[in-house]
């Protein structure tokens, strides 16, 4: 009895500890959303010191300290009005992000499903060698792969166009790696059973492999989407012409430039930018967890 009681108390202590650390993890997200509802006066009163060198009438309010604040004194939607109605450029950049990220995610997944099916059926030495090359390529940081990407874009006259980012993105080997790992664990007996029923390879892929790794496909898709949704390096290097920059750069690059200007606006834009990923989380968290798990277990 006492032993049980002791473990229960111990468990509660651990729950409190883990809970506190969990709250630390979600804090920046909550903070971004909460602060987006502040008026610009409140923002400059609290965060004024960060924009101290701006020559602006707001300077009067500035206190020396930067105060972290959770609950706005007076909740307002004025920042959102700014983002959505007064400055159409933000929505325009948001659209730029979508038009870059969605095709990359969709086509990378399509290519990856096909490829990992190829890798998980009928292995031979040559294929294993190619797969090893994929692993190495996947582990290369952007700064290494960007040099080849830049050369290709330059030769094909793709610089300063969306294609310079989309095309290499489609063939990025990350999702091939994860999906191959998952597909290789599908028992061969399923395939044999399907073959006895007269299924051909295409049917095996679309009607057995695909449904069986549905959650892995969704979770890989989410990870790819999140990665490219936050892209910074590729646009900075592949789209540099001033006209192309203003026409094509996604919001992720632009967001950092607002940071140094109007902080209140930056919080609101950040929150708007979070909407797609939050929706994905609400609908797909279980898939995400299941998919991460499927890719991770040994074998």
């Amino acid at each position, binding site marked *: 009895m006492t032993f049980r009681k002791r473990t229960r108390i111990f468990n509660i202590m651990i729950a409190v500890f883990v809970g506190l650390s969990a709250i630390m993890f*979600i804090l*920046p*997200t909550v903070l971004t959303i909460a602060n987006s509802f502040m008026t610009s006066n409140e923002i400059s009163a609290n965060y004024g010191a960060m924009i101290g060198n701006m020559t602006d009438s707001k300077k009067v309010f500035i206190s020396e300290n930067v105060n*972290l604040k959770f609950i706005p004194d007076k909740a307002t939607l004025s920042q959102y009005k700014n983002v959505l109605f007064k400055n159409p450029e933000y929505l325009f950049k948001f659209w730029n992000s979508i038009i870059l990220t969605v095709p990359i995610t969709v086509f990378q997944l399509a290519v990856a499903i096909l490829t990992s099916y190829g890798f998980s059926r009928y*292995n031979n030495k040559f294929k294993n060698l190619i797969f090893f090359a994929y692993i190495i390529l996947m582990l290369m940081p952007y700064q290494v792969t960007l040099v080849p990407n830049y*050369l290709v874009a330059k030769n094909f006259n793709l610089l300063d166009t969306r294609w310079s980012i989309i095309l290499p993105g489609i063939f990025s080997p990350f999702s091939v790696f994860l999906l191959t790992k998952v597909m290789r664990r599908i028992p061969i007996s399923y395939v044999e059973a399907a073959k006895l029923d007269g299924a051909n*390879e295409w049917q095996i892929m679309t009607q057995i492999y695909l449904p069986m790794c549905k959650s892995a496909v969704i979770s890989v898709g989410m990870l790819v989407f999140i990665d490219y949704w936050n892209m910074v390096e590729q646009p900075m290097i592949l789209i540099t012409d001033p006209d192309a920059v203003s026409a094509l750069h996604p919001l992720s690059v632009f967001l950092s430039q607002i940071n140094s200007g109007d902080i209140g606006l*930056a919080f609101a834009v950040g929150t708007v930018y979070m909407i797609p990923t939050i929706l994905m*989380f609400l609908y797909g968290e279980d898939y995400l967890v299941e998919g991460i798990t499927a890719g991770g277990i*040994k074998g």
Partner: protein
Amino acid sequence: MKKKSRNQCGRRGEKIFSNICIVPSVAGVLIFFLIPFGIVVYYSLISNPVTKEFVQLDNYKDIIHNTAFRKATANTAFFSVIAVPLSVIIPLWLAVLLERNIPCKSIFRTFFLSPLMTPTASVVLVWQVIFHNHGTVNQVIEKFGGTHVDWLSSKYGIYVIILMFLWKNTGYNMILFMSAIGGIPKDILEVAELEGASKAYQFFHIKLRYLSPTILFVLILSLISSFKIFREIYLLVGNYPIDRLYMLQHFMNNTFEKLNYQKLSTAAVLFSLVMIVIIAILLTAEHFFGKDVEN
């Protein structure tokens, strides 16, 4: 065994189909990554793109003596050596804690995963508020009578970045460990319990052994993301940060802007050689533990 039976039950046409499946991807990878990488290697061996004089390893000698490159390499190595092991240990520890019978598990899990959904730039903004010279952390320090630290522009900047890295990657790695812990055969642990093995013994001698493939997998994933940290550093402190935060990726980016192909290609080739060695070591280690990344 599995592989063999797979090979044997195939007919010719099916083998060809599975080969055709990888053709689009292989073609794309060749065009966008491998062939241009060959060109990069070629560039690293010539004096300049105009005269195309073959200079053997001169570019490599130059870059190894380049102070900016050395500094960047040292900083990047320092970051990875600290951040990558921590992003294995902390999630593993949390996963072990969450294995217990505690309330609100799934809410905690969501919280730990939430850094994935927040845009990097917004997070950086919050981070700037917290670690600003007159920001939250310094206010707390001053309240307790300490002297404040200019976090982002002092030698402590790198630790802020490490913290940010851990914040971002812990949730994902934790889930990997949680599922791996769930997969450890219960009967073995029960036998150990009956024979009086301590919790510590159970963890280090039984659980860790079953977890070793996952640990290596997480190690590899963390290594990849540790090289993506440039994004955060760039958003936090820009293109020319203080010395301690000057990473290899800064070096590459700044060389890019000057369009110095030789320097850039040489750095890229060196970088990838080091990566290949590290990966080879990790994969050998994984093979040594009986399972490997390639199944």
